[in-house]
């Protein structure tokens, strides 16, 4: 249902005059999408810094996929998709977190579980036609269908994220820079790792609403990576990561209104473009 709404929306926009797409940009579903974009960007930019610094990009990618069977399973048993995705992502995060910071580099183990989770997600989706219909939205996002209820949930996630980050910022950064020294100085590194992974699972769950589980990298990792190359302090990297993320999502919403393209495609394109430019700047500096 969502996907068909999607494609018909794209078809409609392609035939609209310029005054009509201004109406679309101010329509309630678009306002919801814009607010969601802001809330997602704040979360993704701030957690993204630690994802990059702790070299956990692949773990972030994997968490979204581990969430997939949760999402399709949720449809199967008739509970909200986000809850199913979130529960699976959180369980995956705590498992990877319990294995330690270096687990992020266990690519074979993480990748194998990722593939299995995707397969399981497909299996669940085949068990019910409802789940099957939602599959594309889960994989590639459906930012235009975000409800006010979901926005409140996103706001709660942001508040939790910022409250926890404010509390553990210094110890988390210390354990990120050097786990041995941080541990020697009394930082509870296992707790830091578990909290970080849990926060990442929350952000992945929220962000997958915008671009889907397959394209999550472009929101949680790519903008943070671009910001990391261009800035010289953790805080400025987080802020710029959020700004790049917001630019990508809002840009994606505007451009996909004017041009007959799915928003996820434009969001991912813009985010990758900014990253490519940042890499070019970094290369030019050397």
């Amino acid at each position: 249902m969502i996907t068909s709404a999607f494609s018909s929306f794209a078809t409609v926009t392609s035939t609209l005059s310029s005054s009509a797409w201004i109406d679309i940009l101010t329509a309630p579903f678009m306002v919801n999408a814009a607010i969601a974009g802001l809330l997602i960007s704040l979360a993704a930019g701030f957690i993204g810094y630690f994802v990059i610094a702790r070299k956990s990009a692949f773990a972030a990618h994997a968490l979204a996929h581990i969430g997939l069977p949760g999402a399709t399973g949720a449809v199967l048993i008739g509970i909200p998709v986000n809850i199913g995705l979130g529960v699976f992502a959180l369980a995956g995060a705590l498992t990877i977190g319990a294995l330690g910071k270096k687990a992020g580099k266990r690519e074979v183990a993480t990748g194998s579980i990722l593939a299995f989770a995707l397969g399981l997600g497909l299996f669940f989706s085949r068990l019910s036609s409802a789940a099957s219909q939602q599959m594309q939205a889960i994989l590639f996002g459906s930012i235009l269908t975000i409800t006010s209820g979901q926005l409140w949930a996103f706001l709660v996630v942001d508040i939790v994220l910022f409250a926890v980050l404010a509390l553990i910022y210094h110890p988390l950064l210390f354990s990120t820079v050097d786990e041995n020294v941080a541990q020697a100085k009394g930082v509870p590194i296992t707790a830091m790792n578990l909290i970080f992974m849990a926060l990442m699972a929350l952000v992945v769950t929220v962000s997958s609403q915008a671009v889907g589980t397959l394209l999550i990298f472009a929101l949680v990792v790519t903008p943070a990576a671009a910001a990391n190359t261009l800035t010289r302090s953790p805080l400025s990297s987080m802020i710029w990561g959020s700004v790049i993320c917001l630019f990508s999502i809002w840009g994606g919403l505007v451009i996909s209104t004017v041009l007959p393209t799915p928003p996820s495609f434009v969001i991912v394109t813009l985010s990758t473009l900014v990253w490519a430019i940042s890499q070019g700047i970094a290369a030019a500096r050397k």
Partner: protein
Amino acid sequence: MQKLSHHMMAVHQTCHQTASPVAAVQFSHVSVQRGKRIIWSHGTFQIPPHSVVAIVGTNGAGKTTLLNVELGLIPVKTGTVRIWGEPAGTANQHIGYVPQNYATDIDSNITAEQSVALGLIGTRFGIHRLKNSQKAAITHALELSGIADKANLRLSEMSGGMRQRVAIAQALVSNPQLLLLDEPFANLDIPGQRELVRVLADLNEKYNMTIQIVSHDLNLLLPILTGAIYLLDGHPHYAPVGNVMDSKLLTHLYGTHVEVLKTAEGDMYVRPDPAVEPKGRSEHMHTPAEAASFHVSREPGGEDNS
């Protein structure tokens, strides 16, 4: 040669008589087990305050483990470890720790200065702004370790040697009484190594710091060493410098011929490759078998047995 050695012993003993009675590091019958393997055992020794002590031993002998035991990060199987009279792990705020490979596992834009700041506020929960006194301490620590001019460079832009200096600055910034360094020379070029020795000498003299250094290169450290912990045959021993810096012991320790030369000034040099030396010098050499018999009777203060 023997006379010189005794002379140096006497000098060090008089130094230590004036020191505070609480040992910087005290091991009593300590053994450490990881998995099913006993790393080392029967560790009983004291390191006096104000010492500069090398930790020597072959690869895998448990040198880094020893540091981790002092930090209380690895539980001991038997015995007790006390740092300044407190159980290991309870006084870590007074210990500066410089790991072997600092910040190699990070891809971040954090700068040297921000990294050193973590040595002051890195364990604190909540948001903290740096006070002016803390900023001054950070600058001072960066100056001491010789990278004040690179304070705003990112760790990711730094070489291994430069990161090593950041690690040292981070350890120094909290003004520790005990400084533990794990292979600090490994990433440094020769001027950097000499400079670090000078810095360590300064910290020891001006700031009264007790220093322990895991290192294979004793040549560099000899001018400032007051003693050494040697991990030999599965046991850690401590001996003042005149005792341990001996060709027989080092030969046995590393399982290869190591020669100690003493110059007229009393300086000693470890020559790991006597094969390239003039033939006349081989008289100081001992076979590993001789060295082994030498080792058995050798405990701190027992130099007469040799």
